[in-house]
């Protein structure tokens, strides 16, 4: 009851617009790992492209084939095309990008480009 009353008087929280698929980004020194929950797709329906420091995820989640005689009780799972572009913290080596899809979670490992890695410069003493 308390909960119900208080919820009436609190304004809705500002929510960011949810985008599909949702992404989590894990950055490291050598590579960036991006994980994304995309349940129930065929990995062949996902298109990944990397250009410099930009990753694009494109794909389709197919709707149910509703056969004759089937009636809906609930329909909460979304379907349709999805498209997302992510700016990575640094340029990546597009040739070494690896992706796998396990239990509905897409994992993309993007190694940092050799040319983009920080270089240590030794200061020479004056001769």
């Amino acid at each position, binding site marked *: 009851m308390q909960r119900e009353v208080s919820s009436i008087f609190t304004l809705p929280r500002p929510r960011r617009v949810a985008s599909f698929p*949702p*992404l989590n980004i*894990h950055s*490291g020194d050598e590579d*960036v790992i991006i994980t994304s929950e995309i349940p129930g797709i065929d990995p062949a329906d996902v298109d990944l492209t990397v250009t410099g420091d930009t990753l694009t995820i494109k794909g389709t989640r197919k709707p149910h084939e509703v056969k004759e005689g089937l009636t809906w*009780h*609930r329909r909460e*799972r979304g379907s349709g095309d999805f498209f997302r572009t992510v700016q990575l913290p640094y340029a990546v080596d597009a040739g070494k990008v690896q992706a796998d899809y396990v*239990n509905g979670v897409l994992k993309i490992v993007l190694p940092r480009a050799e040319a983009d890695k920080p270089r240590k410069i030794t200061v020479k003493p004056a001769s």
Partner: protein
Amino acid sequence: MEDTKKNLNVEKAQVPETAGAERTKDRTVFIPAVDILEDANNLYLYADMPGANDKGVNITLENDVLTIEAQVDGVSFEKHNTTYTEYGIGDYHRAFTLNEAFERDKIEAKMKNGVLSIVLPKAEAVKTRSIPIKAG
């Protein structure tokens, strides 16, 4: 048909903590999004539970309440900092009251690509129940 399609851009909903009682595990529990369909012989249920594998899923049918649960092992990247998050990782829980009888022994469930599919065959007694109405 287009307008009956569900939008993809929906955030995962959390199971609220019931007043007074807390879960023993300090872990977020999400409500999986489901599609439920029915035909003359079966009830079909599909639930999105990304991150869960077939070993972590638990389905129970007790007193006409179908409960689906899944435990998800979180992933950690030791050499990485999680710098940006759009989704949380946690377990799944949802329960449905079934208002029909089903063949309990013939319920089939499988887990594929983070989607749980359950087929519940209707009990024979329920299938044939058209009752003719006599004119008075």
